[in-house]
């Protein structure tokens, strides 16, 4: 599964993406592509521009130049809600759930793009709107089962522990039934057990559903084990790309993380560049 395989079934292509904020270059001519069913990791020191890449893909940031294609369709200038409907799901580095709503309502909100009933039908509720809503509820319950959060369904999200909130956020993104999932540090701040759970979900999503994903994560052990391919960024530039084993020993990557004189990075546990 190396990068030398021919590009069949590309889900996402990013071409020469450049983003700058008033003179500060956050992304500098970045190009990469994501294949169907692939799990792509983006690593790099703090401030390398990883989250900015996700923000460009889902439409929060407007790059000064470059193009983004999703499944052959250019989405560079589409607003975020349109991209969501085209199938881009995402989780956030700092959880962005709806705090006053229950876990169930949060995940239900992921189904909104698939619901059709309008204001009048919704206000009358009985009949088509109710049947539609119940159908989506059943889908949401499948996701709740998958993430093993049945007990927390009816709790307000703000009252749930951090690890559970991360799960709910993943559930909400999955409820959209996305064609591409962007995960921004899904395991940050989690215990080893919770990380193992999350890794299990991500693997299952890839193996069983073949869902293409882009993963940003600072836990090198996790990202080296999970990803098919890695991109390493530094100061907005791609400095290396390839399978994890290759990236691990790439001279530029080691330099970006540790400076000039070090020779080893990653491998077993923490590889440096760990964020709080």
């Amino acid at each position, binding site marked *: 599964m190396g990068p030398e395989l021919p590009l069949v079934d590309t889900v996402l292509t990013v071409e020469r993406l450049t983003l700058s904020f008033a003179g500060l270059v956050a992304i500098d001519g970045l190009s990469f592509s994501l294949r169907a069913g692939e799990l792509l990791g983006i690593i790099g020191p703090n401030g390398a521009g990883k989250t900015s890449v996700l923000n460009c893909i889902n439409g929060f940031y407007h790059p000064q130049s470059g193009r983004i294609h999703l499944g052959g369709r250019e989405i560079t200038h589409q607003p975020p*809600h349109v991209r969501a409907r085209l199938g881009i799901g995402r989780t956030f580095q700092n959880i962005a759930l709806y705090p*006053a709503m229950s876990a169930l309502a949060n995940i239900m909100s992921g189904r909104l793009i698939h619901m059709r009933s309008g204001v009048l039908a919704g206000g009358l509720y009985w009949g088509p709107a109710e049947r539609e809503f119940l159908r989506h509820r059943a889908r949401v319950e499948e996701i709740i089962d998958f993430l093993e959060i049945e007990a927390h369904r009816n709790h307000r999200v703000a009252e749930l522990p951090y690890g559970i909130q991360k799960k709910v956020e993943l559930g909400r993104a999955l409820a959209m039934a996305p064609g591409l999932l962007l995960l921004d540090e899904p395991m940050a701040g989690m215990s080893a057990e919770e990380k193992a759970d999350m890794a299990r979900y991500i693997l299952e999503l890839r193996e069983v559903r073949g869902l293409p994903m882009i993963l940003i994560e600072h836990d090198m052990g996790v990202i080296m084990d999970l990803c098919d391919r890695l991109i390493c960024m530094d100061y907005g530039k791609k400095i290396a790309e390839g399978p994890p084993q290759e990236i691990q020993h790439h001279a530029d990557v080691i330099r970006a993380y540790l400076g000039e004189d070090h020779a080893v990075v990653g491998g077993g546990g923490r590889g440096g560049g760990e964020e709080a």
Partner: protein
Amino acid sequence: MSVRPAGDFKTSYARDMALLDIRFHRAGFGLLLLVLGLAPLLLGRYLFLLNAIGIFAVGAIGVSLLTGFAGQISLGHAAFMAVGAYTSWLATTRFGLPFLVALPLSGVAAFVVGAVVGLPSLRIKGLYLAIATLAFQFITEYVIIHTVGGSGGNVVPAPRVGGLQIRGETQFYFLLLPVWLIGGIFAANLIRGRVGLALMAVRDRDYAAQVLGINLLYYKVLAFALAAFYAGIAGSLFAHYNRVISSEHFSIITSIDYIAMIVIGGLTSLWGPHLGAAFVILLSQVLKIVTPAVVALVPAFGKAATSVREIAFGAMLIGLLIWEPGGLAMLLRKFKRYLDLWPFTY
């Protein structure tokens, strides 16, 4: 905390999402309907209170959708009410339309105006949005004074339904009650379904809502339009109830009363607007009776008497925000939870 009463198990998702989900609630709601139906007998000459509560409750449902569920603040709700009232006045006097046409028409007119007023909400938030809607409030008052009738007031005919001329409190009450009930149930259904979910998502975290495919502009404008629709209906009802309308009925004071109603009643509760409207109307009436009595006893109180209503509401709001931000509806829920667990409170 999600405490469930014992012995009442839900076996389907439909049951879980029902508005009145347990037997106790269904029985309670049935009893409430019965009491409302018999209200003219029970209240006698005090029925006018319930009429006033009903009209303002319909308007307050709109504020609760807009402010409580969609998180957008508006200080121009009385102006939406004015749009409805004057539409109804125009429709019935100038165009001779029957009341049953004028009523929905008022709602639709306000809906359209609400959508336009809601447009800036995509760019301006919080306090700034409040000020923008305040501008709409004053513009509306100005327009009313300088176009339709000055501050003298416009006379609205008594509503006519079928061949029946609606006169008196009791007849009007039975005209109002179905509108009130349908309005309340429609809002409750909206909130538990797709629209409610989207509105609350916009309220809680707008950028996350976008990532989930929610068009912010559409839902913010929709929230304003729906709120205005309810206000328009309330305005039309008010016009035909009061029979005289002028700009003074729809001043900034009324807009603020609406805010007071939903804060007192409970911002994010379906019962909030109804409880709040009842509380505000009743408190106003009580003060109207009590204040002169107090002034008669303590003449020195006379100077403060004119603003005693505002003082009472202000104190009430501050007290609630400190001790019970969930409003009366939350107090009710806490009482219910106490009953659910009684006598074993663990």
